[in-house]
């Protein structure tokens, strides 16, 4: 929610105003839901959760039309029955889970509904074709925003106690045995958003899996591939491998792929090697500096996680 665009903020404001303004309006009649009625409670209680700016962007709808649609949805009084985010109320059906809305392209399906006395037996709502089209665009964004999880936004995830987090960091968590809040973690609270920061600190920031990939070469401008022979960059989270041949020859490098039958790696000079694995040779030892994170997480409580995150957030 911290990254909401101005447009998203405007939408929320419009919806909130609409919800408040329309709450007092007289309800005419209960509309019929396409399936079982949604027993949503009061109008406006869901005003805080709506499609995100990412939903508007990714849905492909015209953001200007969507903005106008939000205004028309509000001014026409739609929210009084269907709710500020169109999820429905006890008097109006859910429009997000509505097949009619899901199938509408330019208002051609919801238009006739809106043009007729609506709800049935009620007053005719005077809307221009443009307004109907805009409302349809706004509704499709609500559908898209509910359905497509890559458009979701985190809420405020900082729920822990920073003092307890600091105590855990320097105590039972043993975080300070490898990390320093004035060293490698200095300023992490400014560098990352809290959800990203929480994910980074618990995982150590890397995924220790490496498959049998086709190599990690360098693409050329014409689509070719150059073998990567640059010396690998070793950080404090880099997984390394030691490979010892039957004759005692030993290599250290970063794994390219390891399975039961082969091992492939690039040594510290950047040179690539691969060996068959036969009868236990070569010996392959993987060193994962993030193993302590893995072990910590098996017993980490959610409170401890939240507290440490709350503490790290303060490291501005």
């Amino acid at each position: 929610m911290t990254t909401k665009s101005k447009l998203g903020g405007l939408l929320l404001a419009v919806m909130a105003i609409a919800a408040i303004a329309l709450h007092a309006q007289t309800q005419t009649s209960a509309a019929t839901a396409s399936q079982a009625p949604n027993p949503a409670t009061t109008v406006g209680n869901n005003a805080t959760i709506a499609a995100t700016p990412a939903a508007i962007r990714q849905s492909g709808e015209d953001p200007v039309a969507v903005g106008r649609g939000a205004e028309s949805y509000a001014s026409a009084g739609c929210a009084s029955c269907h709710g500020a985010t169109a999820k429905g109320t006890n008097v109006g059906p859910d429009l997000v889970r509505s097949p009619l809305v899901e199938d509408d392209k330019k208002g051609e399906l919801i238009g006739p509904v809106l043009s007729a006395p609506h709800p049935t037996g009620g007053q005719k709502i005077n809307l221009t074709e443009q307004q109907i089209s805009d409302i349809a665009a706004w509704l499709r964004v609500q559908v898209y925003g509910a359905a497509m999880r890559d458009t979701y936004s985190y809420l405020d995830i900082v729920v822990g106690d920073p003092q307890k987090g600091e105590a855990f960091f320097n105590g039972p968590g043993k975080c300070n045995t490898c990390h320093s809040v004035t060293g490698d973690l200095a300023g992490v609270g400014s560098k990352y958003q809290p959800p990203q920061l929480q994910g980074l600190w618990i995982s150590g920031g890397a995924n220790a899996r490496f498959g049998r990939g086709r190599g990690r070469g360098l693409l050329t401008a014409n689509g070719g591939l150059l073998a990567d022979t640059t010396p690998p960059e070793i950080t404090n989270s880099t997984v390394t491998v030691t490979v010892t041949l039957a004759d005692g020859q030993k290599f250290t490098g970063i794994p390219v792929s390891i399975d039961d039958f082969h091992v492939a790696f690039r040594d510290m000079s950047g040179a690539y090697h691969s060996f068959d694995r036969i009868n236990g040779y070569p010996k392959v030892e993987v060193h994962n500096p993030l193993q302590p994170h893995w072990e910590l997480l098996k017993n980490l409580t959610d409170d401890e996680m939240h507290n440490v995150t709350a503490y790290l957030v303060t490291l501005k």
Partner: protein
Amino acid sequence: MKTRELALGLVLVFAPAAILAQGVTDSMLLHPPANSWPTHHGDYSARRYSSLKLINDTNVQDLSLDWESRVTGGTPAEEPANPRGNNVRVAGSPLLVNGMLYFTANDNAWGMDARTGRIMWHWYRESTGPEPVTSNKGMGMYGNWLYFITRDNNLVSIDATTGAQRWIVPVADPRQYYFSTMAPIVIKNHVIVGTGGDSLDLSGFVQAHDPETGEIQWTHYNTPREGEPGFDTWPNEYAAAHGGGGAWVQGAYDPGLNLYYYGTANPNPVYAPQSRKGADLFTSSIIAINPDTGKMAWYYQASPHDTHDWDAACDTVLIDGTIDGKPRKLLAQASRNGYFFVLDRTNGKKVVAVPFVDTLNWSKGLDSRGEPIPNPEKEPSLGGSLAWPNAGSATNWPPPSFSPETGLFYVGTGEGYAVFYLTDTDEHPEGYAGIESSLGEGPGSIKALDYKTGKIVWRHDWPAGGDAVGLLSTAGNLLFAGNESDLVAFNARNGKILWHAGLLASPNAPMTFMLDGKQHILVFGGDTAYNFVLNVPAPKATAVKK
């Protein structure tokens, strides 16, 4: 039944005998001959076990390639399966009937000569709808007709000889975010398919269709409506009617009990619990239904009130076993939530329920029904809840295997964790309503479990991790499995690796069959079929005296 019997009778009178000899019959489905693989799992038990043993633990090292054959889709249908191939991934097992292989990828179906790898026909139709492509599991067959479901929920019947489409009938509305993956199962005169969807809170269901016309015979929703059993586990009908519980995999059938078994998917909204307080039956459950009526006989809920996307839509494997010296009709499932379940398949009563992963942290034990008790503290929350396994899960839809020879249940597993966040605190959340942040994927293994106890008899930890993989076990004391791009043969009793072959992409679940006196091991890696046999020298040339 009567109509079909009459129709069959007419066919018997008028059709040439050669045509009748071709298709799949009830008898073949009940007792598949060695030269067939007429259902997605080879037979109704879903054991993925073959009694063939020409290829066995003494000669598997000589297994070699007979042919490989690559298919090309109508249009790009999946993420690239391998850099050298196209975008097709054949994820389900083919059928093998009368020397022909029949298989699907999204929007595509093929018929292929199993002796040569020659593509005989190719069917293509582009799906519509907003849902992304997934893994289509394959086909069912009856007579000379093939059945499969498209991503956008159309059941298709095509002629197995020519690939010509006979009919296509809608099963669910893709605009509502329904999508489909399941290989249909043919039981008597019912073609049973399932569907569901997580994005916009649907009601998953299975549905029986007439094999001749495609007409709907019955529909069984996996969540109840008011007045039906299980309704009291939902706060209201709106929640239940939008409560999820899709059907993704084929399931199994016991002809003696006349029960069809399958696992249901997780409830909806996926990660938000507040609008569906209660157990949310019959989501994340193992269900037995009468295939003639669609009526439920019993259920067992693997994840009551799931909030982690741990569906129970993994395969349900039928085991005729012995518990405490008594013969028992059992059903086993390694579930996405990390539990291994063995049930009495006559009544759904728990026999075994134990974790098969090392790191499970969400359960507070078993309740009086023998079902896991979820820890509410591990539900998705504003600040995040750290749960093992992650939503990718301890295992998944790639099918496990059970060998009656070894008494071992084989499953591909992974260990991993995720932080589950609630992103919609509304009283009526919609969609997933949360974010799963999967951060760690650790060890991955093949595990061999004693079905009587769930104890791990052997395990093979892959050097670079692994996940759920499709399996095949045989009477030759072999277990075939995939890891990364390798197809690997294990000694089924002790887990020792005996053979492997590097493919171009991750293998699907292998299958085996006899053709012309040879046993074949057939596997797909992405878009390419690989057919392995014990190659023997060609007949010697006859010397010609001059």
